[in-house]
């Protein structure tokens, strides 16, 4: 079941209504039934559901074993290692071998998100930060909870499971704000992302045939497309869970306001970044061998050298794995190496960069400097997007050639740009959509207050007029296919 379908809207209304009719202690059962229905009805491969059930049961038992052997460190370590290796192995097989090679190997939708959730659960139980679930059906709900299963956010069991099992409370604010956020998500996805996708698919479908100006436009639009697609999905699911009175982790915090690569990754796909920080970066940097190496470096070379070596090793591993998580292909490995390289450089040469800005008398507090930093980060992000959209390394060369030798800037103004599935009206609607998103995010960034709170303070008639306009925009300006269904979300295939 696509989140962008009439079927899903009906499903949300029914689930929410039944959720609040059922007594609070049984609400988790209703969510489990809804999640099973969503998974089985939505994705026709029933073998995937059975696989998911088996992996969940395996993790449930492994966590119980880890907890029950608290006094026997070696046994606990063994349970943790075997279970984590098994889950990683399962993830790797689905990513590399793919479906159909073995009978048992099917790829459940959202496999990467599920694997990471399960690994963090096992590690937290091992580190005694979390308690193993005693009820398998509740645990299966945690794994299968439908708003998060296809694209995250990657929740932590210790924080999220209690909210899910206890159930939320009905409140006007939750229903109203949740529905508004869902609407905003649909706006991002249907009005902006799916419109931009028409153009970017055409341009990246054959890069050699397009001028530099169209390729640059396509790359910038691909960046906005991915942001509106992924964050739009998050708005839809976070809005829905808010309607249920359950709060789920945020995955975006206005990433295009980032002034550095490191800051960007604290604002973009936040739950993936914090997962890597907690379960890869920290364990590596705090491992005895890396600490020993750091200590040796601090003693024999310099304090800075010792600390930098520790960080470089951990960051290199994190970014290699981040690339591989997105896909075992040369595109994503290059993409991961690019981000890792930039972040490592900024960490290692932090002192020199600060010194250089002082020598050059750069006013780092000036708005123009901050604007430059934001633009630079956005351009890096665009370059990364380009790496993931091309089909081969040869295409990167073709793009570089066309940008440098065949730029043909007039093609943006002479109507050529309207020959790729989007007419002038579509471009205007898309730019209008981006403007709305920019205004909303500027208010959030500068005032620290959401637009929904401003709307809530208005008189009822004005509020309802705004709601009616918003719904109309999504219905009339959204891009729909047959039966009001639309393109899949980009991140659900990771």
């Amino acid at each position, binding site marked *: 079941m696509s989140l962008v379908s009439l079927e899903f809207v009906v499903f949300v209304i029914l689930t929410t209504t039944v959720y609040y009719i059922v007594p609070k202690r049984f609400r988790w059962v209703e969510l489990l039934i809804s999640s099973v229905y969503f998974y089985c009805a939505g994705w026709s491969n029933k073998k995937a559901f059975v696989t998911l059930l088996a992996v969940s049961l395996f993790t449930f038992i492994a966590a119980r074993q880890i907890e029950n052997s608290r006094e026997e460190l070696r046994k606990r370590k063994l349970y943790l290692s075997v279970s984590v290796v098994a889950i990683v192995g399962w993830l790797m097989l689905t990513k590399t071998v793919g479906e159909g090679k073995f009978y048992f190997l099917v790829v459940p939708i959202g496999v990467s998100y599920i694997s990471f959730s399960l690994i963090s659960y096992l590690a937290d139980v091992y580190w005694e930060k979390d308690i193993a679930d005693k009820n398998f059906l509740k645990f299966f709900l945690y794994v299968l909870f439908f708003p998060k299963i296809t694209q995250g956010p990657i929740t932590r069991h210790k924080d999220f499971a209690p909210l899910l099992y206890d159930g939320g409370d009905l409140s006007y604010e939750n229903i109203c704000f949740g529905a508004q956020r869902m609407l905003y998500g649909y706006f991002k996805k249907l009005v902006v992302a799916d419109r931009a996708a028409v153009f970017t698919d055409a341009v990246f479908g054959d890069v050699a045939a397009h001028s530099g100006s169209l390729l640059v436009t396509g790359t910038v639009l691909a960046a906005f497309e991915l942001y509106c697609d992924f964050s739009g999905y998050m708005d839809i699911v976070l809005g829905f869970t808010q309607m249920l009175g359950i709060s789920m982790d945020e995955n975006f915090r206005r990433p295009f306001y980032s002034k550095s690569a*490191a800051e960007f990754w604290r604002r973009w796909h936040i739950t993936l970044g914090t997962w890597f920080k907690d379960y890869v970066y*920290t364990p590596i*940097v705090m491992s005895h061998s890396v600490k020993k190496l750091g200590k040796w470096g601090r003693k024999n070379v310099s304090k800075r050298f010792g600390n930098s070596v520790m960080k470089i090793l951990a960051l290199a591993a994190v970014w290699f794995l981040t690339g591989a998580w997105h896909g075992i292909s040369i595109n994503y490995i290059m993409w991961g190496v690019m981000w890792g390289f930039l972040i490592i450089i900024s960490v290692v040469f932090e002192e020199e960069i600060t010194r250089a800005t002082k020598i050059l008398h750069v006013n780092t507090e000036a708005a123009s400097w901050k604007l430059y930093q934001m633009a630079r980060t956005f351009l890096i992000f665009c370059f990364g997007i380009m790496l993931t959209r091309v089909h081969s390394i040869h295409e990167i060369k073709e793009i570089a050639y066309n940008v440098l030798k065949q730029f043909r800037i007039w093609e943006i103004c002479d109507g050529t740009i309207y020959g790729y599935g989007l007419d002038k009206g579509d471009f205007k609607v898309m730019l209008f959509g981006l403007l709305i998103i920019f205004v909303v995010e500027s208010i959030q960034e500068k005032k620290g207050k959401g637009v929904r709170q401003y709307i809530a303070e208005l008189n009822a008639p004005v509020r309802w007029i705004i709601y009616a306009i918003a719904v109309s925009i999504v219905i009339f300006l959204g891009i729909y296919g047959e039966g009001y269904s639309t393109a899949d979300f980009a991140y659900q295939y990771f």
Partner: protein
Amino acid sequence: MEEKVLDILAELNEDIPAYDGDSLFDAGLLDSLQAVDLVSELEDAFDIDIDAKYVVEENFKTKEAIISLVKMILGENKTK
């Protein structure tokens, strides 16, 4: 001991000792990369080993939390 921790924090970022808020991370005074420097400094200064399981945001959110962590590990070492 507390003074020594505050000196280390001041060396890392001179604004940390004066900070009285809820989170050094939210205030932009500390991040996960600087936390590595901090852990190394604390380990060298107090001759302790800070296990990975203690390197979580809660233990580094405020200067009081950092002091409590060092105290706890020093106490653990004594009882061993």
